[in-house]
């Protein structure tokens, strides 16, 4: 019944101090169901830890979940560290409690996609298929 094909490897990460992990775990679960290989970091990782894990695990994309309002700082730091390590080919996407006005700002910083509350699983999977296909 499950026609699962091998898809890209994705790191789902919780940067900063925020412990709300329902969304991160849910997205990890639906991406696994859709055939992606998913590594979930658990909560409270520093951007340094996240980027190190992403490079070491050779992932195609990093999904960041932030509900504390620290998204501009934390997404920015992850993008900066990826650049510093010459790993900007790793796409960054994310979601959480993100005010609508901040979405274009994050996109301008280089975030490939922002999924706010209410995004459907289908829309997330479709977008990630595209994002990870570019790098492949």
């Amino acid at each position: 019944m499950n026609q699962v094909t091998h898809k890209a490897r994705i790191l789902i990460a919780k940067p900063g101090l925020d412990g709300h992990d329902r969304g991160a775990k849910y997205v990890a679960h639906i991406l696994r169901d859709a055939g992606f290989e998913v590594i979930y970091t658990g909560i409270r990782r520093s951007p340094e830890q996240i980027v190190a894990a992403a490079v070491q695990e050779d992932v195609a994309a990093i999904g960041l979940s932030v509900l504390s309002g620290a998204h501009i700082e934390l997404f920015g730091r992850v993008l900066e560290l990826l650049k510093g390590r010459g790993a900007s080919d790793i796409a960054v996407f994310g979601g959480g409690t993100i005010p609508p006005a901040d979405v274009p700002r994050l996109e301008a910083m280089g975030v490939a996609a922002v999924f706010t509350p209410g995004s459907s699983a289908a829309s997330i999977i479709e977008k990630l298929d595209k994002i990870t296909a570019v790098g492949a």
Partner: protein
Amino acid sequence: MTDSQSVSHAHKQWEDKLVNKTIARFPEREKEFTTVSGVPVDRLYLPDGVEDGYLDKLGFPGQYPFTRGVQPTMYRGRFWTMRQYAGFSTAEESNKRYRYLLEQGSTGLSVAFDLPTQIGYDSDDPMSAGEVGKVGVAIDTLADMEKLFDSIPLDKVSTSMTINSTAAILLAMYIAVGEKQGVPPEKLEGTIQNDILKEYIARGTYRFPPKPSLRIISDIFAYCTKHVPSWNTISISGYHIREAGSTAAQEVAFTLADAICYVETATKAGLSIDDFAPRLAFFFAAHTDVLEEVAKFRAARRLYARIMKERFNAGNPKSWMLRFHTQTGGVTLTAQQPDNNVIRVTLQALSAVLGGTQSLHTNSKDEALALPTEESVRVALRTQQVIAYESGVANTIDPLGGSYAIEKLTDQIEEQAMQYIKKIDEMGGMVHAIETGYVQRQIEESAYRYGQSVEKGERTVVGVNKFQTDEAPNCEIFTVPPETTKKQVDGLKAVRDKRDPRKVEQALAAVKKAAQGTDNLMPVILEAVKAYASIGEVCKTLQEVYGEYTESFN
């Protein structure tokens, strides 16, 4: 034929003749109706002999097993405490919001701290980058706490503080502010959340491993029993378990299993149950499925009373009472069509009141997008006031008691919760059930099932998977002032420059010594905060002894 036989005979006839005929022409909306937690809901509930077991199962308000409420007159005496959770940016900014809420008719304060404060990092710690003042107010030292409660007399207000791994430090600061205002500790009223187990399960602001964390909690129980007798020393919380995705029955079960663990820890430490149990408080969520929620609160009260009396042999009726705060469900708020959230919050608040809550926080409509604006907070508070003053539901006690549906759902939730508690007992208790990930997995599976039911359209969320519009949310968004971090870091530096470094050093050494031994930690932490030691410094000292807890990759 007895009464119940004739009812059941008539019921069968009604099903056969009337219902089936109707369904043949007009099918029902669903094949199976369920609560939002997935519990089947019958077409009609009938008398099931509840009158026979009335005294045992329901009893009277203010009497064991408290199914109908913990006070003899409930809201006919006075309404629940209207307590809005608030805090952001610096102490000065939050102090303004508290004074506004009190002017608007709030009857208690509820302090939200930022994440660095909750986990024990100073505002200038690299771990705090981006988080200072974001989800709550930043507190580094007693100087901040003095500003937070400026012109708010601590003998006139009750204050709830959402603080867990660093609860001992914040409580010590509150006691110290009270002393400066001339209010002795025995006159302080309020609550610290102090529920570390649910932090490992669902909320995530732990710092130390479970064992030393439980020891700190026992120290707080012992200290407050003697010195701060009107303080609620813990608020055992199902709220965050529910927010993380549990069902209603799991919320009750895991919360009471946490309570069992705290009671066992404290009694093992030599405390007498009737000395500390009357100060244990609870905190639950209220979701939109009104009947299930009302039943949940009633089931939780009855089950807790039985556990305290029968399992722990508590003798003081106050030890049997489950007193609780309620917050409406944050996860039920939608970013789409935010105005609809006002209606959701109204239903949720109503269920909390029909369920007999002691205090209530109503969420604001914009909270799926950001922290709430002052205007949306006012609407949330007004929602409670309309329920209290206009709806009439507060005029009689437990108004849904005796409803066939409510009584049956109450029994079912109690039964399901007992099954989980039994399973956790068999696993060796809650700490073990958490360490093996059992509890977290149960919650995650429930969250997944719920998410899938919405994705597949089996469950409707108005404005999200049905009745959508293309309009962008049209509401004002609150933003934390960008200069917050700098202000906070500068303030901390000024305190460090001004304080007596020798006093700080000595006080921290005393904290370390107590942590290594068995002396109660509260008096030494109180001395440390009075010397203006920072939260980060006290936590680093404790961490040197206790180590740090972290979650693993998976």
